[in-house]
């Protein structure tokens, strides 16, 4: 057996060094003064370019962020048409106790007057807002009200109209005639429509029976949506606008600091933390501008009537979206892990939408909740957009400045937090 002494492994450093040094450009020419403003701008531009490249590497995400919101607006436009009148008739029953014996408590005089029962039932039939399913004369059908309540419970009718025993008598005596209206109150959104429908029948009844004197009410609607536009779409798109632009911008920016691991390595170069964060703000703001434009274009194409200017609407949406970006970057800057950022996103988002006034009006909340609600962006975004779209208000008002204040606060704090964040490679 032959034992050969192996030479120790050495790197021919001279050769390696000479190869590498032959590559070097003139250091003085290539690496300019690190602290010049021109170089700062150059670095920021390059960082912005990097952000776009990172965004583009996740095409599915970009598709969801840019294409989906306008698609949702389009679908909303297609589904939110103004329904024809016939489809809006509210099914009801009339239960009349008018034919029962009425005993006048003053003189104990008995009467069974029911002259006004049938005129009223005719008025209900005439009303386009009501659909009379059944008329019960409770004098003849003693279980009328029970049957009516069963129908209400089952949902076959939305309202019970009851004429009390003294209906005709009171009118004849020159006193106010009373009609009991029992709407299904389990669906809050329909209560007003039910009551309006019953009132419509009363108006017809008064007209037909020529009961005087009556107040004549003449109404004029200001800031109306012109003919040819869907009022349903126009009133409801506002909520969808603020909801979406804020949410999409928020979620797009929630991970951009915390998931970028090479920031630690990047900080071992002349680039500063401010430049890195600023480039993120710039890049995502540019994306927001695109999202904004697409949202407005899709809404206008679906028949959005805009009383104000497109510029104001664009600015308003931009402000709401930017508050989402600022909030996302703020959370991302202080989160240690992606999981933490995701959790904070959900907590913030749930609270923001629940206190935005969409589900419960802010005026109905207790004072301490109102304070919190009015700090949050959506509470100002909605009235801002509403004012511009429906009333042609200018953007320069309290809501805009408040949103601006929120954005400035979040941006400043993001920079502060990011500057103090520990990065180690």
């Amino acid at each position, binding site marked *: 057996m032959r034992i050969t002494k192996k030479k120790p492994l050495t790197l021919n450093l001279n050769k390696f060094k000479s190869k590498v040094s032959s*590559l070097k450009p003139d250091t003085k020419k290539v690496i300019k003064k690190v602290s010049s403003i021109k170089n700062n701008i*150059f*670095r920021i531009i*390059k*960082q912005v370019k990097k952000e776009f490249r*990172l965004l583009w590497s996740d095409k599915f995400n970009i598709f969801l962020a840019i294409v989906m919101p306008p698609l949702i607006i389009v679908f909303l436009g297609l589904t939110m048409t103004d329904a024809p009148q016939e489809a809006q008739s509210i099914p009801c029953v009339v239960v009349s106790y008018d034919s029962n014996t009425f005993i006048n408590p003053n003189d104990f005089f008995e009467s069974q007057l029911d002259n006004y029962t049938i005129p009223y039932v005719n008025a209900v039939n005439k009303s386009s807002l009501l659909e009379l399913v059944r008329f019960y004369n409770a004098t003849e059908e003693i279980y009328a009200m029970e049957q009516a309540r069963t129908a209400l419970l089952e949902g076959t009718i939305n309202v019970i109209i009851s004429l009390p025993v003294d209906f005709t008598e009171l009118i004849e005596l020159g006193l106010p005639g009373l009609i009991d209206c029992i709407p299904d109150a389990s669906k809050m959104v329909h209560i007003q429509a039910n009551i309006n429908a019953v009132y419509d029948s009363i108006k017809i009844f008064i007209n037909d029976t020529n009961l005087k004197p009556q107040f004549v009410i003449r109404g004029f609607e200001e800031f109306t949506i012109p003919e040819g536009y869907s009022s349903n779409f126009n009133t409801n798109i506002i909520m969808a606008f603020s909801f979406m632009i804020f949410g999409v911008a928020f979620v797009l920016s929630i991970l951009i600091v915390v998931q970028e691991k*090479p920031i*630690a*390595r*990047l900080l071992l170069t002349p680039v500063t933390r401010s430049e890195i964060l600023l480039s993120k703000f710039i890049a995502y703001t540019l994306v927001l501008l695109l999202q904004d434009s697409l949202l407005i274009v899709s809404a206008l194409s679906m028949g959005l009537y805009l009383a104000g200017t497109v510029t104001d609407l664009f600015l308003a949406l931009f402000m709401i979206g930017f508050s989402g970006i600022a909030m996302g970057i703020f959370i991302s800057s202080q989160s240690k892990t992606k999981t933490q950022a995701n959790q904070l996103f959900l907590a913030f988002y749930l609270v923001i939408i629940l206190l935005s006034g969409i589900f419960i009006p802010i005026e109905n909340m207790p004072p301490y909740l109102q304070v919190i609600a009015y700090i949050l962006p959506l509470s100002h975004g909605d009235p801002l957009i509403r004012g511009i779209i429906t009333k042609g208000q200018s953007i320069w008002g309290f809501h805009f400045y408040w949103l601006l204040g929120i954005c400035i606060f979040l941006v400043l704090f993001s920079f502060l937090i990011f500057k103090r964040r520990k990065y180690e490679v």
Partner: protein
Amino acid sequence: MRCEKISISKKKKEMVYVKDLNVKFGDKHVVHDVNFNVNQGEIIGLFGISGAGKTTIVRVLTCQIEKKNWTGDVKVTGLTPAKKYNHPIILSRIGYVPQLELLNLYFDLSPMVNVEVFTSTYGMNKKDAKEVAEKLFRILDLPEDTWNKPVKHMSGGEKKRLSMAIGLIHNPNVLFLDEPTTLIS
């Protein structure tokens, strides 16, 4: 921990000077009285068991650890990392190849784009950076077909070599390498 010095050049310009370096994080004393210096052209290796403080020393030299956590006299390319205003200048003169590629490379971007991202911070224009990068990639034996594909598709060794290329590309005065032989064949 021990340092081994391999002198190659006779030039004596001091690139790294460390005297009485102590690093403490709260009550934890991590580095005790370290002294060494590295002249231009020299290569030194820091050897030690895990937890000895090797990476911590490198972090002090690369301005990653705040002054409040360390004491001693430290100079890198003649400037002390103790002063924050020296950091951009020091960082423009040093190169760093970290141990973990995850912290060093944008996996969703290609090697060329990674080069562009990092070289732009030194003010290098795209054309120059691309030229130098291509030559470095050839020296470091990075296959040409990987240059324009996302880094996540590269093997571990290729990622390591790409890290090295990025560390070298701006021609630093001092190059710091953390566990450089991992994954290298």
